């Protein structure tokens, strides 16, 4: 069942969930800055949010005709494909984590997460104001 309050909060709730998932991916990149052959990963936030709001996965689902079949979805966050970052300065050990980029994206994503938290709080305040008059 979906109510008007659900609808009012859905956008920021989805954005918040995606921001948290992206934060985890960037934390993984920073954690694996010294791991040989690790490839830095990220999601395209704008298309991921659009896909999550439309409720459709951008990938085609594979038909599973037996229990042991894998879903073939690969790695994804909330239906959004996880992509590899194009390396600016790849290192000799095959690692593509660029610490400047990762730290900048981490700070940026954290700030936007806080903004989403603020937006949800304001949405709830609006609903409360409407209820209490």
């Amino acid at each position, binding site marked *: 069942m979906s109510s008007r309050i659900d609808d009012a909060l859905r956008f920021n709730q989805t954005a*918040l*969930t995606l921001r*948290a*998932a992206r*934060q*985890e*991916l960037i*934390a*993984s990149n*920073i*954690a*694996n*800055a*010294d*791991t*040989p052959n*690790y490839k830095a990963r990220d999601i395209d936030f704008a298309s991921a949010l659009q896909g999550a709001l439309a409720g459709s996965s951008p990938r085609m689902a594979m038909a599973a005709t037996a229990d042991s079949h894998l879903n073939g979805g690969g*790695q*994804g*966050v909330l239906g959004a494909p*996880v992509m590899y970052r194009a390396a600016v300065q790849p290192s000799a050990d095959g690692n593509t984590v660029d*610490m400047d980029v990762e*730290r900048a994206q*981490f*700070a940026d994503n*954290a700030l936007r*997460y*806080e903004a989403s*938290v603020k937006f*949800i*709080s304001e949405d*709830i305040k609006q609903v409360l104001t409407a209820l209490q008059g």
Partner: protein
Amino acid sequence: MSLFNIFNIAGSAMTAQAQRLNVVASNLANADSATGADGKPYRAKQVVFSTTPMGADGQGGAGVKVAAVVEDTAPMKLVYDPKHPMANAQGYVAMPNVNPVDEMVNMISASRSYQNNVDVMNTSKTLLLKTLTIGQ
């Protein structure tokens, strides 16, 4: 939940970097150990990092683990010292293949990576605390 998982991811990286720092300390401490428990000179040790999946559903997050601690295969440093009890017939002593410059660079790199992960953890904690204030 994703943000809680960051504690596991950054924590695994901190453990791995701490182990790397430990190995550096061992190498530097034994830079002049001409003999060890097995009667051979000390060999420099290096950690090998590997990625380990850490997402709640096996997706997304990836932590770090120390896959192995390997011994450096570089040749031993031969030092001419005929008076040394470990000297061979030609008067050369095999000293550990520890390269202090490499070890210092490794040490700085490990400590910087450790600090990075501490920052990641602190930011995630702030975000989680902010999340708890929703609706207040």
